[in-house]
């Protein structure tokens, strides 16, 4: 029984890892989560990286969790009115949702780019999922 449970956990972890690293496409925009890391200071650059170079600084009791997402603009991408694409929302294991201050600006302006979405979360919190439009990524994979 224990063996079967371990195997289940391993499979679940592998599936999560596969999902986190797996590309998902929304409106011709292919997205892949390429990493999650904790930082003391993080740039709040727009996505794609643009003119905003404001930084967020870690404060006592919180931490900055940075989720890196790679984007690829596919041929069937259709530009939408400015401000249509909402900021990605990250959710912790307890279901608390966190917002980022990183904004989408001109998402189709460059063919490929990578963005860092910064989340200020209480110390010790681990982000579990990332939602960008209809795409949901599992961030709980050990290497993500």
């Amino acid at each position, binding site marked *: 029984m224990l063996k079967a449970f371990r195997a289940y956990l391993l499979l679940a972890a592998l599936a999560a890892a596969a999902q986190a690293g797996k590309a998902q496409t929304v409106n011709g925009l292919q997205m892949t989560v390429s990493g999650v890391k904790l930082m003391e200071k993080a740039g709040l650059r727009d996505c794609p990286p*643009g003119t905003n*170079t404001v930084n967020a600084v870690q404060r006592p009791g919180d931490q900055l969790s940075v989720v890196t997402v790679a984007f690829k603009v596919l041929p069937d991408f259709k530009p939408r009115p400015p401000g249509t694409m909402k900021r990605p929302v990250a959710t912790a294991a307890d279901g608390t949702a966190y917002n980022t201050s990183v904004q989408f*600006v001109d998402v189709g302006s460059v063919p490929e780019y990578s963005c860092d979405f910064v989340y200020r979360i209480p110390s010790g919190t681990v982000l579990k999922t990332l939602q960008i439009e209809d795409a949901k990524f599992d961030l709980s994979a050990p290497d993500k």
Partner: protein
Amino acid sequence: MEIDRRAFIASLGGPAAVALMDHEAKAEALEHYMEDKLDEMVAAQQPEKFPTVAEIEAQIETRPFRRGTGSVFTGARGQNVKKIEPMPDKPTLQDFFRLRFAPANHVLQSATRAMKTGMSEEIILACLLHDCVLSLIKPDHGWWGAQLFEPYIPEKSAFAIRYHQTLRFYPDTEAGYEYPDQYYRIFGHDYTPPKYIEDTYKMLKNHKWYMEPRLVTVNDLYAFDPNAKVSIEPFEDIIGRHFKQPKEGLGYDNSSSAHMWRTLARPDNPL
């Protein structure tokens, strides 16, 4: 460590200078260059040490001018001021942008971003104008700025300009606003806003127009890319639709802020 060959050669004085060096000198120069780069990389990874309020206050008597002086009244980096071009007889907002607010990168970038993120025209206009008054005066620039523009712009834009100053001190991650690290640098990391700012914040939190100044803070980029090219041209239509340009020219229409425009127009007047 990757070496940027061109940057390395340039640091030595260019290819001609390198050609005159023997192998040993080149090897030594490369070693020094790599050490310097390594130091830079290590320094970049160190957390920045922000000043305290007391440290910032200690700088007051190191300057020949007050920190709150408007930028038209002080020389760049402590240098003497320069003669400024006179304003036309009937100056427009665009004239002030060209001759008194220039280079205005900060407000132009804020407005550009507001446009790209789909803000309303009132907010784009507020972003375009929100810090222009810093040419005249800096403390309480939200209130001064709103007063300067109030006779000419929509009420919502004036509200946004007046109160963006307050909301800059209060993060709102739901709206997409983080307390900027630049504020740790200019106010001190242990700074707490005075009571009137706190009271204003409490009032704003329950105000139906809370999001107007909040959206200015979201697009208020104290840190911006100095290489980005911005101009006032993309905003000409919004100015045309929402800025009531007085036919007498700004400063000569007897409005409640006409004197402020005249002061900006003639900052060298002795009285």
